[in-house]
């Protein structure tokens, strides 16, 4: 089974959850012996782990035919691609893309981020897809999130191979209902054209069916999983006098930071010895600092700023409670990461990961009382912490990408054999 995947991010250079999920899923799938994955991203950095799949940078695929000699290509493509491969891809150029600005090899430059001219980059990515569809050999096309839907659709039209799309988020989640019409149109077209749609949670599946009007029969749920920690023992919880309750993520409307502040105020009105941390940054940060001051809890409420990499896990391992009161979260991998290092998690029912977690506390995002109650219980009743700590960790260690990969494979087989 050869899959051609279109993605936008791949570790270690990631900007959001999409990259982490792409990595985990492809790695899990690669454990199936006959699975060969070619993963296209706009701009590889060269330090991606290619041990289990092949990465093609869209920025080294020629879309305009240039007459260049072997030695020149060899010198220019050093470390990225062999001249033979370049020539092979160049043979796949069937359309005239001279309107796109290209370099001396006929390749397009990509930022690989989320720039202002994002729509233009998506279009260029589509051009790259056409070349790949003409020159590569594959059985199925798999597109990750809306940025890559047009590329997937084009590749499908050219090759006649089935297209599955993977919905990691929709614009409804990002905008709390205030969708951008351009983005919606791209998403809708991708969903209509896809032979099958995979969503990261039942919550997202419902959004796809209800908001985009897609036939439920072609929409499945494949829950995300979490990469096991290489050295879980290196994260320890130091003894400290005060209990630590942590919020970690972008401080934006979607993540529900204000509910966390209100819950903190409630806990602090009744008890001492608890501190609250809101790590991260975002457009709501100033407002949150204001709110904390207004509630008079600034002495117990801290804003350490943005954290990355290992800092995140260290912070989580140090905490007594991790809280994610998201208003709308397609999946939300961070509670799983918290539970991996043994930190009890409180999550909103409006988060996709709530569907697969038993040993986490679930409340509605607006239910400040329930949230405060859960925080209080975890810091005051030892059995509560102990159970969530031990059982939560065991539970998360059982949520494996390999299993998610098997589900995806089943969908591939179903789509190819028309049995789905």
């Amino acid at each position, binding site marked *: 089974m050869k899959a051609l995947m279109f993605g936008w991010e791949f570790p270690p250079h990631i900007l959001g959850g999409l990259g982490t999920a792409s990595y985990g899923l492809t790695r899990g799938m690669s454990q199936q012996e006959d699975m060969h994955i070619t993963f296209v991203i706009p701009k590889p950095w060269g330090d991606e782990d290619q041990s289990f799949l092949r990465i093609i940078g869209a920025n080294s695929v020629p879309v305009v035919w240039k007459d260049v000699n072997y030695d020149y290509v060899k010198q220019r493509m050093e470390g990225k691609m062999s001249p033979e491969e370049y020539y092979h891809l160049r043979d796949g150029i069937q359309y005239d893309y001279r309107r796109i600005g290209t370099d001396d090899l006929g390749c397009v430059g990509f930022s690989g981020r989320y720039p202002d001219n994002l729509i233009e980059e998506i279009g260029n990515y589509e051009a790259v897809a056409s070349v790949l569809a003409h020159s590569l050999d594959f059985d199925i096309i798999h597109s990750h999130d809306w940025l890559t839907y047009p590329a997937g659709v084009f590749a499908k039209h050219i090759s006649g191979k089935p297209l599955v799309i993977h919905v990691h988020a929709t614009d409804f989640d990002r905008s709390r209902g205030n969708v951008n019409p351009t983005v919606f149109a791209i998403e809708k077209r991708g969903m209509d054209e896809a032979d099958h749609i995979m969503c990261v949670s039942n919550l997202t599946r419902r959004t796809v069916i209800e908001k985009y009007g897609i036939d439920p029969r072609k929409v499945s749920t494949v829950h995300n999983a979490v990469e096991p920690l290489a050295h879980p023992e290196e994260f320890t919880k130091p003894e400290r006098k005060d209990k630590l309750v942590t919020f970690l993520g972008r401080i934006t409307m979607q993540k529900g930071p204000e509910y966390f502040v209100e819950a903190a105020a409630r806990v602090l009105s*009744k008890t001492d010895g608890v501190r609250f941390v809101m790590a991260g940054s975002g457009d709501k940060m100033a407002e949150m600092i204001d709110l904390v001051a207004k509630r008079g809890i600034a002495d117990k409420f801290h804003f350490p700023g943005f954290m990355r990499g290992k800092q995140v896990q260290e912070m989580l391992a140090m905490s007594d409670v991790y809280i994610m009161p998201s208003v709308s979260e397609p999946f939300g991998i961070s509670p799983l990461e918290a539970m991996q290092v043994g930190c009890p998690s409180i999550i909103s029912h409006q988060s996709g990961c709530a569907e697969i977690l*038993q040993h986490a506390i679930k409340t509605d995002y607006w239910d400040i*009382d*329930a949230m405060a109650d859960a925080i209080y*219980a975890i810091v*005051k*009743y030892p*059995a*509560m912490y102990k*159970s969530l700590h031990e059982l939560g960790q065991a539970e998360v260690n059982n949520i494996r990408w390999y299993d998610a990969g098997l589900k995806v494979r089943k969908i591939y087989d179903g789509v190819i054999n028309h049995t789905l």
Partner: protein
Amino acid sequence: MKNICFCFQMHSPYRLKRYRFFEIGNDHYYYDDMATEEHINWLVETSYMPLCQTIRDMINLSKGKFHCALSVSGTMIEMFEQFNPEMIDVLKELAGTKCVEFLATPFSYSLAAEYNESEQKEQLKKQSALLENVLGVKPQAVWNTELLYTDEIAYNLNKLGYKLILTEGAKHVLSWNTPNKVYQSAGAPKMKVLLRNTNLSDELSFHFSDPGWGNFPIDAEKYANQLNALPEGEDIINIWVGADTFGVRQNAGTGIFDFLKALPYYALEREMGFMTPSEAAKKLAAEDVVSAPYPLTWSGEAKDLSVYVGNDLQQEAVQKLYAVAERVHLCQDKNLKTNWLRLQDVNYLHYMNHIDQGETQFESAYDAFINYMNILSDFLQTVEEQYPTTIENEELNELLKTIRNQEEEIQKLQAQLKKKK
């Protein structure tokens, strides 16, 4: 001759209200009375009432040959008095037939037998007194909470004067032996033990309407044949189920009531009799000894206490609760005593099970634990206010004795004074 011993068990907990931590110390009322009433009404209507009426009909139709037993907790009787007095009437009627035995059961269906012996004693006494008062019967045999049994419990109950206890015929205790005869407790030689026939009882509770069950469909004749086919010498077959098997677990549409009603006819036709537990203990001799050093119940796969106190949440709750037992026993406050009884209900612990939460109204084991612990925290605070933990139990006891004796002393002295005058 083969005898069938039917027991039906009735109990339902008070519904706890949503109790947040910021109520601790402010709000001392823990129950959602409306939800309790609604649930009890439903339970009585769909199950308990039709069951009692069926039993009455069976006694009449068999001309008094059908006998059976009921375990009704004190909590349950209190609720009937409050919400469904017609249940009291029908129970009285059943008691009047002399065909129905009422069993001694811990007042609030608690695990006191395992955690506090004197509390267990209190609860049995209280339930017996209530039954005597309301129904005019005096229970003789013990149906402990969820059939909880150990040799030690048998010994303790024997000391209180009980001569018969009911428990589960669990495989790990019986091994190759049959539950269908009378046993003697290893903990107390004078204590007889009856064992529930797990398979035949579960066939009604869990499999009656299950098309996947090998014996489906079960009808009265087939069931009677099954009982009759048991080996010679197995004289007492104990079919004990929750009363809610009739109407709730198996709804009326499955024909479970008609099945029950028809059973005496087919059983009597095959010359089988019906006995209450006490009748069985009186008429049949103990043939073997049964020993259970560790708790035995009718719950879960393991047939032990793990369903109720198997995880950390349940352990913390039950330990914290019974840690104040001594103090509560010293106190006289009526409200506090009522709460103490109610909070011991085994169902609240069941709700905290991660795998099977019983008939919980909580979203998860954690949710149930949070709510219960908040309530318990408030309760413990009220106990603490009455008797601060800074004073040792024994010291407290002495002080209380002095205070209570004071009155007698004063009266004595006053009497003397009067005489002198």
